[in-house]
């Protein structure tokens, strides 16, 4: 599940996935609240294998969403990767302490984007 208010980032990620020929199911939400509602509607076996979470979002931002997820018995086991533009050390250590698996900076060129997607893929067993 990709949680990001930036639709272009959805598209970029989708393109990478198709470029790599990966068979997968990507679910998108444009803010934390929508994401939580989407999760609510899913059966236990439909829950995403990984959640990629942007930080700067309207309504419910990344940090708040992360806290909600880690507080919930149902979602706390799902690995969360923070996916943000800013390379802020404070922000990073905060997110990690809240239970995020990693903090990934959004790619600034094609090559680094490719690496990021491959990294995400490596984290998910069933690709």
């Amino acid at each position, binding site marked *: 599940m990709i949680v990001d208010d*930036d639709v*272009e980032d959805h598209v*970029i990620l989708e393109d990478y996935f198709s*470029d790599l020929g990966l068979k997968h199911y990507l679910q998108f939400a444009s803010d934390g609240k929508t994401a939580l509602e989407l999760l609510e509607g899913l059966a236990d076996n439909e829950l995403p294998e990984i959640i990629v979470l942007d930080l*700067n979002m309207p309504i419910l931002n990344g940090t708040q969403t992360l806290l909600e997820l880690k507080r919930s018995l149902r979602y706390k086991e799902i690995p969360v990767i923070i996916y943000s*533009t*800013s390379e802020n050390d404070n922000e990073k250590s905060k997110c990690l302490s809240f239970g995020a698996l990693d903090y990934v900076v*959004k*790619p*600034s*060129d*094609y*090559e680094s*984007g490719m690496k990021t997607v491959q990294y995400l893929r490596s984290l998910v067993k069933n690709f």
Partner: protein
Amino acid sequence: MKEIVSVSLENDMDLILAHKRVMKVCELTGFSLIIQTSIATAISEIARCAIEHGEGASLKLGIDGTATRKYLVARIEDSIDFSLKCQEALNYAKRLVGNIEVIKTPKGIQIMMKHLLNFSGTFTPGKIDSYADYFKNEPAISPYDELRRKNLLLQEFADKIRDSEDDYRTLTDSLPLMMFTLNNRGQLTYSNKWIEQFLGIPPKEITAAAWQNIVHPDDYATFNRAVTAALQKATPLKGQYRLKEKGSGNFVWHMITALPLKNEKDAQVKWMGFMVDIDAHRLAEKTLKDNMDLKEVQEKLFENQQELQTKIVELNRSNYELEQFAHLATHDLQEPLRKLFFYADALKTKYHDKFDASGLNMLKNMTNAVSRMKELITDLLNYSQLHQQKLDFNPVDLNVTVQDILKDFEITIQEKRALFDIGPLPLVNGHALRLRQLFSNLISNALKYSKKEVVPHIQISVSQTDEKFVFLVKDNGIGFEPQYKDRIFGLFERLHTRDQFPGTGIGLSICKRIVELHHGHISATAVPGEYSAFEIELPMAAVVN
């Protein structure tokens, strides 16, 4: 004896008066006409002798005795014993009234006649006073009598006035107050002792001209004008002037008051006035005023402080808002830029084959432009973060810091074959990351603004005083015109075109800010074509936070 009336015995007129008075006293005290006549004749006989042979004799008539037994008493006194010269008269008198006694005293002689009063109890002191009053108000018996009485009255008044004047003088002399009277020409006619005591000038010498030496030079003009005006118009004078004290030579504040006195015809006759020491009063007044002034100043100061406080709060808020804005703006600017770069890069990578040489060049220029903007935004972000942060200071070994920086610039240093001359650097208390940024920017500049044909030589040294470290980062590069030595620290200030030297014009602003955050000072010197040198002062006390 309680006296009713007295008569001095000097001449024949007195004799008549004495006879009449004795008759009247006898009448008032209730004796029959026969007894009246007998007593009066007897007293007159002795009085005649006293006038003839005595000197300054007097006759006193009164009542004496106990509450139940009272006598009418007639007493003739004289300083000369004339009794031997008038035995005949005395004998005659004794025959008339009996009870006549001659007493010799140290002062002279007393001839006393006593006659028992009927109904003694009725002669109360009040009644006796009323007899005395009768004689006081008794109409003049003769012109002589009247003259004489007026004379006595005058004498009495003169005595009273003399007494009163004495009292007045004693009183005025004992007061620490200068009192005076002036005639209508302004000349001193009376002054109490205090005037001489204070001014040290005998009253005779206090002329109009003398005042110039008495009144304080600063007050004299006003004083002179006031006095002249008062004398001309005959209006009261009142004013505060400093007068010179004889003893100390000090000038003491006095209140001078003079009132014109007029006679019944409303003509100006004289002046009466006083001068009172009001120095303490003036001092108290001045202190009070000073206090008030002080209080006012304090209040004003307090107001200003509050205003300042408000302004500081406002400034802080607006600063904070500005920083927030800068931070957000740069952060939000970065995002579309990242996409722009990403797409250009994706195009170049994924669709490389589909572009001709010109298209690829455009893509290259596009990514270059985006890179520059990214650099600019990163620097701006850094700069704005410098304003937001409150730095935590720790001990920083600058030797390590500089070596780390040199590793970062390894490639450039190799390319340019740059030489470094780095003296032993101290351990300072500061913010490690920011100090690294500071030296990194300076070293980066030194490498960047080097001369093409000359090997860059960069020196980093430190000198130390009791209070501060002074670092010097000096190169042998292109330098700059000394007139720009302050401007170069301004935000976005650039001395070269981008073609010559790329850059954002933020680097030195960041340096300046970092040094300021360490309570230090940075300055630059340069000679065009020879060198640039940056001097950084870091106070030790402040560096040890």
